[in-house]
């Protein structure tokens, strides 16, 4: 059996609060294999985004051990974590979070710029190829405000894939899209998974879960159910 891409061991995340510590996540044990498309579901406030932030190295766990692709995120220095974030993981936000003063193309080139990857023309070619793959190549030179929500989210996915990370994290990527646009985006993600990408996606929508290969349900910071979904 191959080693999983992601291992979570006894993870907990506690936020200090005036009325005592608040446990956003507790006792999380989870292994995610390469090529998995995991849907994280649960009620609002159950800790889904918190979990994703831990996986993306944006936030640190209070307890336990997280290993992603051989990197122990808890033990890594801030600098190492930054470097890893640039190359090891792609993140897609619910509100797209494209930088408003950069064109779609430039947004996609930015992570390669930060990772100092390749030459400038090479970055440009790769960014164009990614936009093309997500079907928004014709929007390359537009600013985000000139794009529809669906187009923006595709650009955001392209940006997340810029440095060819093995893992993509998406926090309610379809939350702000109509159902048809959402569907095509999910199909795009499923296609990427078939090509070997691992995706962890937070979602509320049952239809989105259908595209996943696994689902993890959270309630009050704990995993309450885990199942494999067969197509």
């Amino acid at each position, binding site marked *: 059996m191959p080693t999983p891409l992601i291992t979570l061991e006894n993870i907990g995340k506690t936020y200090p609060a005036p009325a005592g510590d608040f446990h956003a996540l507790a006792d999380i044990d989870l292994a995610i294999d390469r090529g998995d498309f995991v849907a994280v579901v649960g009620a609002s406030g159950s800790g889904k985004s918190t979990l994703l*932030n831990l996986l*993306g190295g*944006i*936030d640190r766990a209070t307890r336990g051990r997280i290993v992603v692709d051989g990197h122990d995120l808890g033990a890594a220095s*801030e*600098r190492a974590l*930054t*470097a890893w*974030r*640039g*190359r090891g993981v792609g*993140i897609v*936000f619910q509100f797209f*979070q494209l*930088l*408003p*003063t*950069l064109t779609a193309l*430039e*947004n996609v*080139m*930015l*992570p390669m*710029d*930060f*990772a100092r990857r390749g030459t*400038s023309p090479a970055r440009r070619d790769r960014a164009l190829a990614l936009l093309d793959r997500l079907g928004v190549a014709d929007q390359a030179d537009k600013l985000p405000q000139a794009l529809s929500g669906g187009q923006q989210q595709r650009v955001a996915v392209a*940006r997340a894939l*810029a*440095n060819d990370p093995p893992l993509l994290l998406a926090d309610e990527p379809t939350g702000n899209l109509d159902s048809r646009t959402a569907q095509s985006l999910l199909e795009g993600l499923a296609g990427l998974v078939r090509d070997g990408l691992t995706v962890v996606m937070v979602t509320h929508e049952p239809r989105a879960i259908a595209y996943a290969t696994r689902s993890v349900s959270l309630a009050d910071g704990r995993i309450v159910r885990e199942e494999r979904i067969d197509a």
Partner: protein
Amino acid sequence: MLSPRWRKMLRDASLHKARTALAIVAMVVGLAGAGALLASWALVQRVTAQTFLASRPVSATLRVERVDDALLARVRDLPAIAAVRARRVVFATADANGRRTRAQVFALSDWHASGIGRLLPDEGAWPPRDGEIVLERSSLEFSGAALGGTLRLSAGGNDAVALPVAGIVRDVSLPPGWMDHVVYAFATPATLARLRVPATFDEVQFVVRDALDRDAVRRVAVAAKASIEAAGGRVTGIDVPVPGEHAHAAQMDSLALTQGAFAVLTLVVCALLVVNLVAAMLAAQTREIGVMKVLGASPGDIAALYAGFALALGVAASLVALPLAVAIARPYAAMKLDMLNFPLGDTAIPAWALALQFAAGCLLPVAAAALPVARASRMRAADALRDAGIAADGGVVRRRFALPFVGRPLRLSIGNAFRRRARMVLTVLALAAGGAVYLGAANLASGVRASVAHLFAGHRYDASLRLVDDAEAARLEAAAATVPGVAGVQALAKARGVLRHADGLDGDAFALVGLPAESPLLALSVERGRGLGATDGNALVVSRRLLKNEPLIQLDAEVELQIDGKPTRWRVVGVVDAGPQALAYAPAAALDAARGGVLASTLLVKLASSEPAAQLDTILRLRAALDGAGFAVAGSEVMRETRRVFEDHLLMVVQFLGVMAWAMIAIGGIGLASTMSLGVLERTREIGVMRAIGASDRAIMTLVQAEGLVVCALAWLASLALSMPIGYALADAFGRVMFAVPMRAWPNADGAFAWAAMLGVVSIVACAWPARRAVRMPAARALGHA
């Protein structure tokens, strides 16, 4: 091709176009001012080194009864001495084309010496031939004479002799003649003989071999004195100037120091603006910074991005400011050099000054932005992403201001002003700094005027005349009193007093004024001790400056003075303020007794008319009458004029401070405009909501203007507080360099009101554009702004 991150920076900056431009303009003003000061200082330093130090200025002057070649050779042979020369200085009256002036004629033993007090021939003949004179460059215009013309010189009460002006020379060791109102001339001993004054040399001047401090030079001078006395000569005095310093150098240096301090203050104000601009950009982009971090940007990447923006601001400002600074520095340096009597020479500003200025200009905004940039770049990605944008709340303050008499709109404006507290504090400080300097300058000006008024308070005469030779007081008064237009006269005796030190050396000569028991036209305003009484014998009232110059002179001390070469003992009974003059007053009877005669050399005159033209008429009549009665008049002064010139001279520094204050207020105003426009930008949505619920253009405009006024009111209060230490420092610095002025704790009311009015105008102007933007904002766009 520019990488995406820099393209982002460029476009973000262009979003803040107006604010960026304002910050650059403010920095240009500050950098040009500070740079001009630095560049002119550097230029003056270099010219000083190239001309003054290169002229090998005299290290010490010994007054000797009679100097001959053998004596000079003895001094030259001393091991510490590099060069010597002999000199005689003759005080004379000059007359050229009807213009009468005081003159000093120098005869030197060696006109071509390059190792001591080198003179720079400028035009015409050099050295002076017998029967001719050469004028010093800085007194040529003042003398009224021209090259090739003639100057009539009279000395020692002898008839004037017309001498051709054969050449012009520059002596960089002399203060400018036009400034000191003296005509400096060079002539041979034979020419002095034609003026019928002693033509032998009576001073030995030398330059020491190594760079020594003043005390070491003094020791060399004492050795020279011993050597001269061993050969039978008699040394009556030693004068050792501060080595390597021009007569006006201390004044110039203190001026430069004060200016430098204010230049730094101006730059600090500029830096505050940059901090505000960069902090606002960072605050607005917190979430974007979070996103960039998620995309793999390291803290260094983020810091480099915003520091790069600051650097670009600095480079842009420096590129504009540098040529401006050079353009200002040249004429300014020329003015300073003129005041030092140095030739302008090479006007290229030293490269190091330009480089330093450019580097400082580029790095200033980077340094200013360092703290907020460092904080933003170190922020954790998770926190940055959570940032909800601009959500600072002035709620607490707003509630505290919920006073019954403060209307709701004003309360809103006050609350708005307090929303971004750090930014408001910086804006207030920037404005207050300019105001404090303005108030400080206003305070200093009124202090100077008050001091001058105090100084002249005891002067109840309108004019004074100086005689060439001493005359009998009663005869002089009688001759003057009958002239029509003269309302009162009083003759004064003036002698040269020289303090005898314990080591047998003489101090610098100072004026000793004999005051009659009845002195209707001149009253002393005694500061410490007491004035002179009718029963006083050898009592002295000394000026504060004399007290400072001579440590031996103390209140109640007994001192030995040389008067007309005779030693006498005096007791110091009081101290008066005589401005920058080192002088002492003694009872006329005691002074007459010490000198052996009732002699007067100055006549104080009270005039019947206070009308300038009539006064001048009377003075001319008086001079003619005195000349006719055998009293040769060397010069006359109209007190009103003297006082005005004196006051103007002092107020020059104050005026400079005024200019600095204006520059700083302009920068502060730019800061306010920038802060207000940021406020409007950040409150786009809120303004939209107010629009939607029916706020009128006027209401919105008033809201913005009122907020500006709130900030200005705070700045006014802060400037009052700040002006106290600044005023204190100014008065102190001024007192040290020029003239003691009273320190005032409170800013003067006129200045404070004027500044309040000015702030009102600044506020309205600075808020005009932000207010317009707020009004122009369509409700829909305002609401849509995320």
